[in-house]
């Protein structure tokens, strides 16, 4: 545990050599996680630097035409459409996941009896354990043809709306469970005080518990966003394989992760900028999720400071 233990260990030479060896072996295993991060950074940067030898950083960051895999003169490496599509798809997902996720969290934490909560929460977590390829199948063969076309919407067989909506369902449980933890961390005395003053359960939930847990709820949203931004297969299967700088959700869209997966399967020479583009996009995605994760950790710390 956290408290420093008194040094009770006997000091015997033969044993202590073995003990020290074990200690270093365990440390070596722990360092694998650091090596993983280092490996990720090196593998991304090495090719990204090479890529920027072919393509200007300005052209990459501010160019509005993303056609890295087409040959000849029509090839262009402006990442704006790809980043836009990524954020747009994430936005559609969050429009679903935030209200439904936070609503679920408030119900679980403030309304459900402990027994009901204990049954419902694991079922909700099952949803986040479903492989994303299954969600991709669902978006492609059910949401697009049956629901969206059934509602009379003019969508293509690959479209941003279907991929985005299902992306929202994917991150809903993440948001719901993390937000539920945050709401549950609000001390009961705050609720009791408000009830004692005659507030209804809705008033207690919305005006007392929710504001008190706000930073934890925001952390949940950021975590959900970070998961949605990095999702690959749903978009690859149901969103299509072209980028579109448009606000029309009926169009096909591709996000950064899906581009990486699609491009690494395409038959491209490893020396050219097409190959480097995979890593440049990977670096961009990595930095974006790292930033979101840092923000989420900061918010979590904040709400922990208040009540623990």
């Amino acid at each position, binding site marked *: 545990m956290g408290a420093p233990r008194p040094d009770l260990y006997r000091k015997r030479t033969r044993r202590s050599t073995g003990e020290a060896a074990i200690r270093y072996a365990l440390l070596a295993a722990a360092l694998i996680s650091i090596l993983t991060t280092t490996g990720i950074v090196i593998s991304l940067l090495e090719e990204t630097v090479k890529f920027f030898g072919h393509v200007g950083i300005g052209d990459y960051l501010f160019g509005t035409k993303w056609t890295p895999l087409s040959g000849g003169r029509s090839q262009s490496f402006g990442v704006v459409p790809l980043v836009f599509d990524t954020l747009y798809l994430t936005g559609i997902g969050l429009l679903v996941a935030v209200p439904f996720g936070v609503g679920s969290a408030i119900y679980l934490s403030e309304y459900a009896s402990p027994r009901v909560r204990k049954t419902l929460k694991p079922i909700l977590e099952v949803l986040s354990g479903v*492989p994303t390829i299954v969600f991709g199948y669902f978006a492609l063969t059910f949401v697009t043809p049956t629901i969206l076309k059934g509602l009379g919407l003019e969508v293509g067989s690959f479209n941003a709306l279907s991929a985005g909506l299902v992306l929202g369902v994917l991150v809903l449980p993440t948001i719901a469970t993390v937000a539920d933890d945050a709401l549950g961390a609000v001390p009961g005395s705050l609720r009791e005080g408000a009830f004692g003053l005659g507030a209804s359960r809705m008033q207690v939930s919305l005006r007392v518990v929710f504001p008190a847990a706000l930073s934890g709820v925001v952390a949940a949203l950021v975590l959900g966003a970070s998961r949605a931004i990095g999702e690959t297969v749903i978009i690859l299967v149901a969103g299509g394989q072209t980028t579109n700088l448009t606000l029309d959700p009926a169009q096909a869209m591709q996000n950064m992760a899906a581009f*990486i997966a699609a491009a690494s399967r395409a038959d491209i020479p490893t020396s050219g900028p097409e190959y480097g583009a995979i890593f440049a996009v990977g670096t961009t995605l990595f930095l974006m999720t790292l930033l979101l994760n840092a923000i989420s950790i900061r918010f979590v710390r904040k709400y922990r400071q208040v009540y623990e």
Partner: protein
Amino acid sequence: MNTVAEASLSRKVVERASTGQRTRDLMFRLALLASLSMGFVVLAALVIDVVSDGASKLSLDFLTSFPSRISPENTGVESALIGTVYLMILCALFIVPVGVATAVYLEEYANRESRLSRLIEVNIQNLAAVPSVVYGILGLAFIVRGPLGLGPVLLAGALTLGLLVLPVVIIVSREAIRAVPSSIREGSLALGATQWQTIWKHVLPGALPGVATGVILALSRAIGETAPLLVIGAATFARFNPEGITDRFTAMPLAIFEFISDADTDFRAAGAAAILVLLALLVVMNAGAIFLRNRYERKW
């Protein structure tokens, strides 16, 4: 008289206010219930959709045939199923020792305040949030090509997935180790055992159910991962089984991807059947985790 009238009036006001509030409360409660049921409705729709598309394709032949590009009637998932089983075994062989060793180091040896252990801790937190496709890039650059240069083979796939799910094993194992009360350690140390003997004979056996749950949780995440395997260049279509750890392979999610990338509805139905096989594997693994937890979990 006057005061009685006043009292009844004020009670009326209070009641009227609370009826309005009560309606709003009820609406709010219904809205919350609706958002909660959204998750369950989608889960049900998803299962019904997959079962209705794929159940009729499911047969023993489907499990024991290689995939076919020509005839959806004779296609199957044998190579993918075997690939997935090998992949999970190899992955477990990698994540169990490394994950548990890391957890033991962080909980039993590391000085909490030291810069190194805090670095490792923050690092694991961040790794857990890295998108899986980025692990694919790591696998591609370091394991498939580059320093290890294994090619897109089973071992490369298992290592890539292993690195991806390692944070899960570490985080869950640490909790399990932490739950073993320090009185157990102190008792063992007082009898003259060394620190490692204490860990090996007392702490780890006590933490075993929790650790096993964490490993199964990690594997059930790894088994459904598609993106990293796509990026490292694993086959999505293979009419052969891997025979050694340096053989090329395919896996269930990749076979599903291949099936549903076909516009033909019969092939998509085969994809649904393959999804059912994958979900069945997941259910078995999770049932195993729940069984382990209930059967062996100790109350100290």
